[in-house]
């Protein structure tokens, strides 16, 4: 059984990409994961229905932060339509792990925040 805490996950947890605020974001949203106490605030810059830039501020468990990091890299340049496909499965694929029910909300936190920002 492969560990959840692979080099990929740990790298993105220790060195989260795109961490921080955005100047003049077009879309902003916060999400909370009551199970873990994870919190995230996502900043998006969307132009012509495409994600120009994405940053976030997050506090919480390794899976939530690693997920936010890989997601932020993936969605730059994606269309809004493609972005809406970012569900739990997609997040698990990005992180190359499969989580049990208990940690799903951690892995899906960032993608939920991004989808919330779009509305």
């Amino acid at each position, binding site marked *: *059984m492969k*560990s959840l805490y692979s080099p990929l996950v740990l790298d993105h947890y220790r060195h989260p990409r795109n961490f921080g605020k955005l100047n003049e974001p077009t879309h902003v949203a916060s999400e909370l994961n009551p199970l873990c106490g994870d919190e995230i605030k996502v900043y998006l810059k969307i132009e012509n229905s495409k994600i120009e830039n994405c940053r976030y501020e997050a506090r919480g468990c390794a899976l939530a932060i690693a997920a936010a990091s890989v997601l932020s890299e993936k969605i730059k340049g994606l269309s809004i339509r493609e972005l809406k496909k970012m569900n739990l499965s997609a997040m698990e694929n990005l992180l190359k792990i499969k989580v049990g029910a208990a940690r799903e909300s951690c892995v899906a936190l960032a993608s939920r925040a991004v989808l919330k920002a779009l509305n």
Partner: protein
Amino acid sequence: MLAEKFPILKRKINRHRLVYLDNASTTQKPQEVIEAVSSFYRRHNANVHRRVYQLSLEATKLFEEARDKVRAFINAPSRQEVVFTSGATEAINLAAASWGSENIRRGDEILLTDMEHHSNLVPWLMLTKKKGAKLKFLPIDRQGRLKLSLLPKFLTAKTKLFALTHASNVLGTINPVTRLARLAHKKGAKVLVDGAQAGGHLPIDVQKLDCDFYVLSGHKMYGPSGVGVLFGKKQLLEAMPPYQTGGHMIKAVTKTSATWDDLPHKFEAGTANIAQAIGLAAAIDFINTIGLKKIAAHESVLLRYALQQMTKIPQIDIYGPKASTERLGVISFNVQGLPPHDLASLLDEYGIALRTGHHCTMPLHQVLGIESSARITFGIYNTLRDIDEFLHALKRAQQIFLS
């Protein structure tokens, strides 16, 4: 070895031996308890009370014998004072709904402590809101012990009830409940003690304690889930209105009125959790065969070893009393830089089960200034080897996360 009596401990989790360290959440069951429940269904199952046929007489005898065993276990003066419920939570809800709504009025005070489990908090919160009464919380010190010096400020002439835990499910703190009950009674307050964590770990003597109510959780003391106990002093229970009404708790019913059955049946509406009560009796037998003194001594050895080893770990915060003599085998902690749920997931990969989160004590975690914590809690079948494996996995987690 004791672990052999517990079938589930033979399981492998992720190809590792199961190391079960979440006993404060629920305990595993010895073969005797599993057998008692299953044998009831195989050979003696029938509804209880007021039936003439042989099978029902057997079921009733087993059920009422279970009540007698509980009475002896907590040294209640009489069996009329032992009410079976679905658990400790229902027992407290019963006291709040029945005793509470009759006796709490606007301006009255109910005293709790900072360390209460939600089940001994929310029912009182809702009651005080409904009645316009006030809810107060006796604070804890830096070692998670009650600040007894503040008692005169918190326990006043307006206090009608002091509800507190016998021992904390997070801090492990064992409260001086006998002394506190005496002080509360001096002020004219009644006392409810939440024994959910104490059952199966500490000796319980409700007469010595002189509490007005005591609650027990069956599944936390090697018994089945779905059964608990409310002990209440006879005069109180007699004066209290029923909690739930319906079959089994009445003497006579017409279309316009109903009269209640005697104690304790007045508080046991509907068909009881018969099999579960019988399972609880088997758990009590199991505990008595080993002896509470021996159990406490064993858990004390585990606790001392675990505390000694854990305090050596750099960057660890351990909550609760430093002295092992003041606490149960309950250790909540945080490792800086290691989020609790990640620790739990990692340890799960080694077959180790521990709890993380707020452990049904959000206000306590707020007082402690933390989001969540990790917690290991011991049972009769845990060993020093379990602790060593936990420590080894914890160190591994630290290496992975903090290198």
